[in-house]
């Protein structure tokens, strides 16, 4: 019987892991430089953390991996983490001083069932959360942080799609939909089905005009939002706060030279967003997203604290990022004849080179799967020879120090 990985799961091979670690390192480095602290939450959480009303949509909850733990006789289920933000909020409430501003980031996998098994059921994401600030500059900081990471990874050109959770919710309530219908349309919208909102009619001419613009025209300046304001007429006061918030973010992003698109139907995925929502797109592909979720912390049982965050989708980035680490510091060392003295010397030289920052692989007499810039051969009596695979030149060396001089000199 042949064994296979589970449907919907992905193995990461050494070449994949090189890119994975590169993305992770760039993300970690940028976050640390912005004052974010790294966290890691457990893979298992209680299901009720996610069932709190308004955290995940029923459609998403219907696809979580939930099961009874070995002590789950009470029927209380645990889940494989389906999302990164909610566990971060749980960790924040459980273990972090809640005064002032808290910046946290993580690299984590999330699990969501997908029926066909042809798409991924385990996904990796790089997430950052900024808790405690309701300023538009907090949202902008997150957008700029994500942009910086993507730029350092050489992924682009980046388009940031902006939407606003509060604006959509106000719109739904203004359309006079019953609470149940509102939730249904919002769920559809969050599942990426913009028609659900487009199909809803209204007799209010102001609202109808604004709806037409919001649903069918994508903006790229604060002028667009001014147009929407003008069209809303009498209905404007109900939208004022949300529009002001989005306008501030738009003005700041424009000032920072960020390329963006205001697209109300882009707020896909999570119900907990209350304010500005952003999607990061490269060549039409979504590589990340996030937004403001001021109601989430109270929903999970904490105090009323504003927060926003984003996640970059590592699986998509892995397809886009081109990264070859180079083999300049990679060495293959062989002890010819395999005598004890030669092997001992080979191990000692390898240790010296590793100490100096080189990656050294011992030759086992079979072809290596890695490529090396340098190969070192240990002959009888401990004599060393160094071959530069880039030039084909071979030089003799007396000791590790001598090898290091030759390698550094050649570079």
């Amino acid at each position, binding site marked *: *019987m042949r064994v296979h990985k589970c449907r919907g799961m992905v193995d990461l091979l050494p070449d994949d892991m090189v890119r994975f670690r590169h993305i992770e390192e760039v993300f970690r480095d940028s976050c640390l430089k912005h004052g974010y602290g790294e966290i890691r939450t457990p893979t298992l959480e209680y299901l009720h953390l996610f069932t709190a009303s308004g955290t995940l949509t029923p459609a998403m909850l219907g696809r979580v991996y939930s099961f009874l733990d070995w002590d789950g006789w009470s*029927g209380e289920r645990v889940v494989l983490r389906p999302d990164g933000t909610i566990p971060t909020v749980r960790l924040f409430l459980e273990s972090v001083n809640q005064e002032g501003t808290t910046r946290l980031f993580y690299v984590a996998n999330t699990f969501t069932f997908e029926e066909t098994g042809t798409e991924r059921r385990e996904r990796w994401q790089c997430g950052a959360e900024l808790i405690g600030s309701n300023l538009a500059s907090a949202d902008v900081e997150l957008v700029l942080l994500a942009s910086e990471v993507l730029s350092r990874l050489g992924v682009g050109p980046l388009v940031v799609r902006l939407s606003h959770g509060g604006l959509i919710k106000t719109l739904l309530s203004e359309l006079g939909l019953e609470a149940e219908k509102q939730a249904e349309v919002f769920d559809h919208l969050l599942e990426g089905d913009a028609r659900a909102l487009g199909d809803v009619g209204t007799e209010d001419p102001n609202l109808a005009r604004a709806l037409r613009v919001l649903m069918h025209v994508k903006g790229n300046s604060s002028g667009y939002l001014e147009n929407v304001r003008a069209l809303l007429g009498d209905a404007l006061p109900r939208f004022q706060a949300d529009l002001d918030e989005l306008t501030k973010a738009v003005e700041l992003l424009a000032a920072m030279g960020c390329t963006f698109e205001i697209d109300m139907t882009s707020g896909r995925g999570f119900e907990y967003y209350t304010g500005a929502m952003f999607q990061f797109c490269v060549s039409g592909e979504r590589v990340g997203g996030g937004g403001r979720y001021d109601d989430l912390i109270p929903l999970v049982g904490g105090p009323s604290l504003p927060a926003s965050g984003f996640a970059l989708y590592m699986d998509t980035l892995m397809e886009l990022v081109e990264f070859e680490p180079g083999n300049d510091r990679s060495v293959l060392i062989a002890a010819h004849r395999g005598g004890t003295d030669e092997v001992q010397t080979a191990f000692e030289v390898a240790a010296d080179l590793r100490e100096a920052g080189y990656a050294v692989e011992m030759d086992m007499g079979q072809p290596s799967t890695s490529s090396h810039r340098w190969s070192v051969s240990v002959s009888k009596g401990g004599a060393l020879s160094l071959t530069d695979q880039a030039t084909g030149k071979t030089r003799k060396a007396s000791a590790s120090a001598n090898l290091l001089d030759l390698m550094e000199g050649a570079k």
Partner: protein
Amino acid sequence: MKLALPKGRLLKDTAALLEAAGLGLAEYDEKSRSYRPQSDEFTSLSPKVFQEKDVPIQVAVGNYDLGICGLDWVTELLSKYPSADLVELGELGYGKGGLYVAASVRAGISSLDEVDGRFERVRMVSEYPNLAEFVALQHRLRRFSVLPVWGAAEVYPPECAELVLVRAASANGLARHGLVPLAKVLASTTVLVANRNSLAEADMGGLLARLRTTRVRTRQSERLSPVGGATSESPEEHNGNAVRLALPDGHQQRHTVRFLAKAGIDIGEYDEPLKTRRPRIGLDGISVKVIRPQDMPAQVANGNFDLAVTGEDWLRDHLYRFPSSPVERMVNLGFGTVRIVAVVSERIPVHDAAELRGYALRSLLQIRVASEYVNIADKYARDNHLAGYRVIPTWGASEAFLPEDADLLIENTETGATLRKHKLRIIDDLFESSACVITHKGALSDSRKVPTIERAIEVMKRTAA
């Protein structure tokens, strides 16, 4: 063509339907113990009889082309596995009822929207755990647990659960159990179901045409549970000091009635047929509920009962799944003794677990282990290193699964006669199981209850001896 037919509540009407449709199945009646009735008319038809809730599963996995069962069990399967290869082909006109989410009248609520405001934590008991979870998610209940039970869900509220999802003939039928309907989840009826691939590939037209046009006179409307009589099932005010005892229905009931009589304990309402699921017992300070023995260990673990009369088999099945459970056996009552055995068909040349392992490896077979005891079966397969096995949960009539629909069975047997009759061979003896009294370790530290528990245990020990 393979047809999966239901045992139990739908058997009589289904037999009448098949008779009227001209199938004339011999040995498909309430008295027959055969699982393989034969049709004189359709000689190519291979019918098999299952517990009703097994029917849609067997059809969905492709073991059967067609099946007859309640829409409730079809929906239960599809609510968890929407892409299952199961197609509902239409109503057959009998076995009508509804699935309702209900709460105790004492909860003082009348809709699901009021649930989160009324309870911090919601326990929903049901024979339909997938549907119960679906309902909880759709209604966005904040903190809920779904407790799957084998039956008698209606007796759990208000003490042991806030909500139940139960089948009833009508919403009015819930009132006699002290329940108030909060939502009707499904209008259920008997349906014909087919496997998607069978529909696509096999010509079943002749049989489908007959079943589509045939109708039968329906029997009286269905009751929520087999409990009859006029006794109101409304719960009494809960007395926090009372010791809560769970007694079994089903096969163990008869033995338990006899045991209690021998112990001199008066519990007349518990005699067969069961008149109420809350019988009064002639022991001071003890309140009784009658539930399924399969459900007792979990209920005791959750602190819903202090004592319960169940079987060693169900206790072990629970402890294999939840090793740190606070349930423990107090008294072996010595009746209802069975052996739990591993069984294969006589058709396969295997006489012990090692031979089975070798047989599976040689034939590249993924062993299908059918059992009511899912966790005992899982442990047995694990301990015996049956590579690539699958456990198929069943709800009774498990011996019917061999040899076509399972390779190994973990089953209980008194004498082995039924197994021999079905041409099955015992290849392993796992353990002996008798009725026993189980308790929650914590109950023995409650000083208000200890004297009553000790007195009850003493009486039972003396009687068992």
